[in-house]
């Protein structure tokens, strides 16, 4: 490769000199100019502009020799008899040297300006890619940009994993095999402070040709290795300027990788914080919900125990009934808590049997009559529906939760309606109330655990009912949805007439269920 490179240059120089020599040979026949040697300046300056000073000097010397040999008496020797001509030719050499030097410097300046522009463009593009795109995508783009700008044969970026092992993230083009066995000691070796910046890049020359090198650039954040950038240099090798560029890109890459790591750490912290919040919500809602019925029970029991008042039979009956109702309420709460843990544990297997849904609705409505005492209940049940396969206890619980919610969250005297309708492949149960509805901002998360539409004040509730209900309905391959939120809330669930067995086995989506309270994990 390098041979061809030199060959091309040498041939170019020789060809240039030959061309001018031929021109001089022709002109000598037409004109009577004593010295045509300055014409060689054409090719000398051309060489200087194209290849730099040394090729230009070579070109000047060659031209001097050629002119001397071919056109200066005695012809075909390298001797010069005419001292004036000798002087002129020496002046030509000097002029050629000076002008070509100027031209070569100009060329170098231009080259440098172009490179700087290229570097700036590259750094800008790298910075933008790293700032605006996810790290994995950005790394690919950076590798591509480097390959284009530095004419690399190949480029790869590897990141240090948690255990210090290098993981390849991006690899494009052809990379020399030596890198596949990751020389981890390079990464871990501490850089020496006395090393000049250019040496910061670990350069390893490999391969059959001396200049066809492979390079490895460590990516570090404050001395800590976070990855490496590997590249296979182009045929001519990398120019020294590339080292500076690579060092800058490496810094940007390292910073971006560190940023990503910090972002992930922040996400992790945020997740933990939210888990904590959820746990706090659980504690406060569960303790409130457990204590409120306990307070009512204690007040009633305390009253019954007091000997200073002679309670009438009706009073005693009233206290006892209150205790009975509140114990039922506690029982429902505990059941919801246990069900939630069963759902989260994935231990939910409905025991399906054929039931008439209309019958179930009537039974639940009758059982909840005390709770619904202040609400006129309307049942609109299609009676021509086929029986469906359900787990009676689960669907009972779903309907109980929905009705209890309707009673709890609406003012006394407002209507509650249950409808049962048949659809093509499913049956549908809706519970509608005439209450205040659900604020839009709360509707989205209404099925999340420990969510209540009105957190501040508002009727107490564990925020478990809807989450549990949804889990149960989904375990049947059905869906529970909030149908209408304004002008009263309407919750509907549909159950398939032919349960799909695959869905029955599917555990509940674990991503929704971030917290688990180990204490609650009693799987019956």
């Amino acid at each position, binding site marked *: 490769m390098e041979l061809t490179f030199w060959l091309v240059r040498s041939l170019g120089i020789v060809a240039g000199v030959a061309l001018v020599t031929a021109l001089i040979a022709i002109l000598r026949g037409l004109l009577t100019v004593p010295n045509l040697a300055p014409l060689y300046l054409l090719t000398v300056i051309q060489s200087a502009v194209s290849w730099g000073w040394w090729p230009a000097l070579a070109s000047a010397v060659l031209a001097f020799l050629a002119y001397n040999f071919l056109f200066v008496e005695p012809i075909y020797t390298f001797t010069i008899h005419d001292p004036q001509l000798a002087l002129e030719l020496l002046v030509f050499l000097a002029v050629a040297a000076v002008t070509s030097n100027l031209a070569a410097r100009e060329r170098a300046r231009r080259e440098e300006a172009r490179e700087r522009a290229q570097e700036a463009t590259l750094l800008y593009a790298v910075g933008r890619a790293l700032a605006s795109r996810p790290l994995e995508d950005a790394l690919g783009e950076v590798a591509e940009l480097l390959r284009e700008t530095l004419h690399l044969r190949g480029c790869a970026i590897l990141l240090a994993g948690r255990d210090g092992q290098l993981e390849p993230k991006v690899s494009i083009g052809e990379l020399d095999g030596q890198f596949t066995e990751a020389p981890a000691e390079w990464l871990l070796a501490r850089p020496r402070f006395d090393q000049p910046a250019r040496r910061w890049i670990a350069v390893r020359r490999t391969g059959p040709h001396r200049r066809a090198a492979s390079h490895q650039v460590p990516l570090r954040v404050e001395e800590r290795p976070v990855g490496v950038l590997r590249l296979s240099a182009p045929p001519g090798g990398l120019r020294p300027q590339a080292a500076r560029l690579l060092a800058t890109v490496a810094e940007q890459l390292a910073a971006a990788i560190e940023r990503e790591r910090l972002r992930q750490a922040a996400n992790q912290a945020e997740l933990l914080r939210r888990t904590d919040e959820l746990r706090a919500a659980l*504690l*406060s809602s569960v*303790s*409130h919900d457990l*204590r*409120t*019925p*306990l*307070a*009512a*029970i*204690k*007040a*009633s029991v*305390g*009253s019954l*125990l*007091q000997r*200073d*008042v002679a*309670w009438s039979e009706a*009073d005693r009956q*009233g*206290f006892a009934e*209150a205790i009975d*109702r*509140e114990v039922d309420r506690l029982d429902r709460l505990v059941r919801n808590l246990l069900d939630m843990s069963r759902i989260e544990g994935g231990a939910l297997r409905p025991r399906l049997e054929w039931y008439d849904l209309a019958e179930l609705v009537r039974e639940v409505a009758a059982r909840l009559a005390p709770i619904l005492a202040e609400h006129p209940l309307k049942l609109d049940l299609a009676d021509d529906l086929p029986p469906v396969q359900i787990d009676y206890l689960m669907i009972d619980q779903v309907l109980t939760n929905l009705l209890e919610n309707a009673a709890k969250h609406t003012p006394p005297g407002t209507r509650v309606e249950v409808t049962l309708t048949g659809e093509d492949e499913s049956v549908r149960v809706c519970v509608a109330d005439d209450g205040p509805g659900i604020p839009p901002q709360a509707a989205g998360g209404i099925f999340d655990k420990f969510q209540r539409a*009105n957190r*501040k*004040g*508002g*009727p*107490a509730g564990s925020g478990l009912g809807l989450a549990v209900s949804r889990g149960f309905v989904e375990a049947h391959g059905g869906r529970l949805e909030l149908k209408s939120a304004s002008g009263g809330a309407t919750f509907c669930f549909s159950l398939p007439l032919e349960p799909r067995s695959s869905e029955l086995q599917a555990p509940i989506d674990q991503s929704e269920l971030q917290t688990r309270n180990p204490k609650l994990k009693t799987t019956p």
Partner: protein
Amino acid sequence: MSGARILVVDDEPEIRRALKANLTGHGFEVTAVASGEEALAEAARAHPDLVLLDLGLPDLAGLEVCARLREDQIEAPIIILSVQEEEEQKVSALDQGADDYLTKPFGMNELLARIRVALRRAGGSSRSGQALLKLGDLELNLERRLVSMRGAPVHLTPKEYEMLRYLAANAGKLITHRTLLRAVWGAEYEDARQYLHVFVAQLRRKLEEDPAHPRYLLTEPGVGYRFESPA
């Protein structure tokens, strides 16, 4: 005392029912409401002798109800009912003029005792106008600023005396840290709780037979102090 009119404010129907039945049985005249707005309206209409106020109400925070009752010149004692998690709100409510609190679930006998103390205090209100305060074995001569315990004179510093006078004048009532600091040291000291601990310890050494088990100067953990007059 019997026949006093009590306003019960709680959004839990079962608690309202139980309280109403029990307090009616004990000879009180009880009105029960479920929300803060109803409570304000009822209080303005009927001027109850005492208010039992739940902190977790659906419409207004119990705290706000408390403040607005006082704004409306309702001077009836307010007893806060709260679950344990509402600790901070409870203290704020006491700072804003509530007289006492009970944590749910509470015993009926304790509630009745608190109601009686609050009503008695409200009834014999102008204790501060008396020249001589007698509480158990403690005597305070307010005109001459003299204190004696079981007949023996007790020497108090001016601040100790101020503190004892304020607590004794409000005997039976729960006084929050903040209220006590404001009354004795002034509003700018209302967060300087460390003063209280020191002065209360000194007062106990001078007044109590066994300062480790005080009978007069009782601590309500995290809330404040209560001066009891042992029967």
